[in-house]
């Protein structure tokens, strides 16, 4: 049956969806980290992924751009689609996929190069004039609210920056590639409150043009930035929906307790 074979490769998700998960699961060896996740990441807006420590939030994010591919014992269940194409299909060009799905990790990690070189790191293969390079660096650094801090010392080594500045540099590095989706794993965790607010504003801004999927443990922050909320617990997607709905009248009591910042027994 070629017809149904074909259907399997293409997601049934509607057009306003960037990434969709169907019965998605992740295993490491014989421990199940994520299972049966069905979710959509809308094409616009900030989606906040919340859940207790160890729920599998990072695992989910890392599975979406296939960063975990090299990890020993990883196996994937179900399906994940990015703009209709299956992420874990055999013929998927992983490098291209990763370049299109930007990612900012929980801990900043800059390369031992200059600040400007860090921003341009993902563009090394692209032929660019000096002026173009400068424009990209400036735009990306402005986007990550770092330009004012570093514009006078773009040639200095990036590892001389403070933690919070390094995190914003990582964001700038991802922005320089003009990603179609941005995944952020607790981007404000190692950042001072002022920078955190800048990054929040940045996420809101970006959310107007591309989907942003971000993880946070800070529920106040989640309330400030979220258009949509995914609540993950013990490897299961408990509930998902619009922010307004999730924060005021979530369907499940478990979600209500967690999102009201109370002790969660899940």
């Amino acid at each position, binding site marked *: 049956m070629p017809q149904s074979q074909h259907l399997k490769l293409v997601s049934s998700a509607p057009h306003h969806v960037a990434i969709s998960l169907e019965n998605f699961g992740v295993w490491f060896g014989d421990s199940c980290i994520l299972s049966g996740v069905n979710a959509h990441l809308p094409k616009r807006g900030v989606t906040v992924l919340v859940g207790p420590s160890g729920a599998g939030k990072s695992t989910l994010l890392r599975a979406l*751009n296939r960063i975990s591919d*090299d990890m020993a014992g990883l196996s994937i269940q179900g399906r994940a689609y990015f703009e209709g194409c299956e992420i874990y299909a055999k013929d998927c060009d992983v*490098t*291209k996929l990763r370049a299109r799905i930007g990612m900012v*990790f929980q801990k900043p990690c800059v*390369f031992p190069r200059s600040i400007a070189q860090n921003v341009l790191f993902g563009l090394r293969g692209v032929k660019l004039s000096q002026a173009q390079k400068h424009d990209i660096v400036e735009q990306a650094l402005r986007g990550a609210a770092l330009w004012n801090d570093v514009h006078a010392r773009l040639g200095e080594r990036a590892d001389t920056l403070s933690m919070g500045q390094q995190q914003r540099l990582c964001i700038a590095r*991802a922005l320089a590639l003009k990603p179609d989706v941005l995944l952020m794993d607790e981007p404000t965790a190692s950042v001072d409150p002022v920078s955190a607010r800048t990054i929040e504003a940045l996420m809101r801004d970006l959310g107007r043009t591309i989907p942003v999927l971000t993880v946070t443990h800070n529920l106040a922050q989640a309330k400030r930035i979220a258009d949509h909320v995914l609540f993950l617990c013990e490897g299961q997607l408990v509930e998902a929906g619009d922010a307004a709905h999730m924060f005021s009248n979530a369907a499940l009591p478990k979600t209500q307790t967690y999102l009201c910042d109370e002790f969660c027994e899940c």
Partner: protein
Amino acid sequence: MISRAAKEHIFAAATRAALGLSVCILAFLLGAIIVRGAQAISLDFLFMPSRDFGSRGGISYQIFGSLLIVLTAGLIAAPLALGASVYRSEYIKNTAAQRLFDLALYGLNGVPSIIFGLFGLILFVNIFGTGLSWFVGAVILAIMMLPTACMATISAMRGIDTPYRENAYALGLTREQTALRIIIPQSLHGLVTGLLIGLARAIGETAPIMFIATAFSGAGVPSSLAEPVATLPTHILALAQQAADPAALQNAWGASFTLIALVAMFSLAAFFARARLLPLSQR
């Protein structure tokens, strides 16, 4: 029953004795060579060719030949070690395959040097018909240096945190690009240190090169790849066989001193190269 404190004393004393003994042996050896050798050293000795099978004249061609062979060996070993290390560290993900690779390295490292000499003699000199050739000697020494260089490079690569790789992948870099731009620059200190330690060892080797690459007398500056050279260790061997002649013995001490000085130079270079090339993040 011996008390715990007494046990500790005995243990400490034993370790101290072991250290003291090794230092004494080293000091005696170096002392003898320095005292005897320094008497033989002069500018003429270092920069004149030898005469009368080495009992007269200097060791200029021997120094030249030794440096030529080991530096060429280093140049051959460097890309091989780098390639093998990148492959082991970034491409082999299967633990069984990694173990096999490491086992092969340890095995290669454990092969006695005379076996390499024999291998070179049979494969190159006899089967390929190269005749005595300094270049074949360099190839054999390169193979001998490979495990040391690889192990040092691989261990430097292991020291690079996974997040560096993941961040590079997340920016759409391929495995090759990640290796070229992140892994290799950050593990150069391992490669250079490993190579220099390998060089320091190789320059003193006699067995692997004496059948295939060296001539005991009459060799000068080679005009092609397929000519023998004179080297310090084989020269020392030849002089030691004429030990009854005091002049030859004197020159043997001088040549030994020079050889040890070269080894010390490579070791020092390894030390400084490591300090200079170690990435800022690991200093």
